[in-house]
């Protein structure tokens, strides 16, 4: 398990290629999230991401552990950026390697779904018109609830 919170941009590619070179890897699944240029018809100038240092790492470690308890995975890497981000910038990467693909798919989707609701990050969107804190997506809460049903 590797958890990285940083301001700088990072390369999903390098992570995938490093994971794939380790022993006994049959599958790597990666999720990467990007800043979209439009939010509710408003053209974004930039985004600011704030987090709660310490709790972020603690919550991501606990999410990772829950994933690992359910699916047989080799390695997991979670990288999340904070600070000022521009449209099309990468925000987050979740990369999971495993022997067989289904475990990597499930663990990767589980981690990003719980990151969305339980890891303390907050996004602020700055456009020409206004600056607004992003509000939670009902869809995200529903997805988390669906995983809990499977437990």
């Amino acid at each position, binding site marked *: 398990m590797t958890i990285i919170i940083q301001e700088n941009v990072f390369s999903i590619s390098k992570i995938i290629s490093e994971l794939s070179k380790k022993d006994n890897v049959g599958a790597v699944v990666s999720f990467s*999230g990007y800043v979209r240029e439009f939010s509710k018809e408003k053209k974004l100038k930039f985004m600011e991401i704030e987090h*709660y240092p310490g709790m972020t790492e603690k919550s991501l470690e606990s999410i990772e552990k829950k994933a690992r308890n359910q699916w047989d995975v080799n390695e997991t890497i979670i990288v999340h950026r904070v600070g000022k981000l521009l449209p099309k910038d990468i925000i987050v990467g979740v990369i999971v390697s495993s022997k067989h693909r289904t475990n990597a798919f499930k663990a990767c989707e589980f981690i990003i779904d719980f*990151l969305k609701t*339980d*890891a*303390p990050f907050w996004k*602020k969107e700055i456009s020409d018109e206004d600056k607004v*804190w992003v509000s*939670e997506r009902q869809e995200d809460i529903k997805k988390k609830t669906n995983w809990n049903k499977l437990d």
Partner: protein
Amino acid sequence: MNLKLLFFASLREQFGFSQKEIALSRTVKSPEEFLLIMSKESGGEWINLFNNKKLYKVAINKDLASWRNLIVEGDELAIFPPITGG
């Protein structure tokens, strides 16, 4: 009773600070009771926050908690709007 209080995102902006050591004149047992005391003693934004606490989340010592979870001397209390990372 001493607590460390943290605000994030919109609450940080509203209250004008991100963290503060709080020395309460009495002991409180939960985040909810903490807000009640603060709204009685300091008023203003605190009354608002107490009344709208369902719109916010609370963490005790960096773990998500509920408004009625137990808090003790020295705890780190964080209050923030719903999480929107990823």
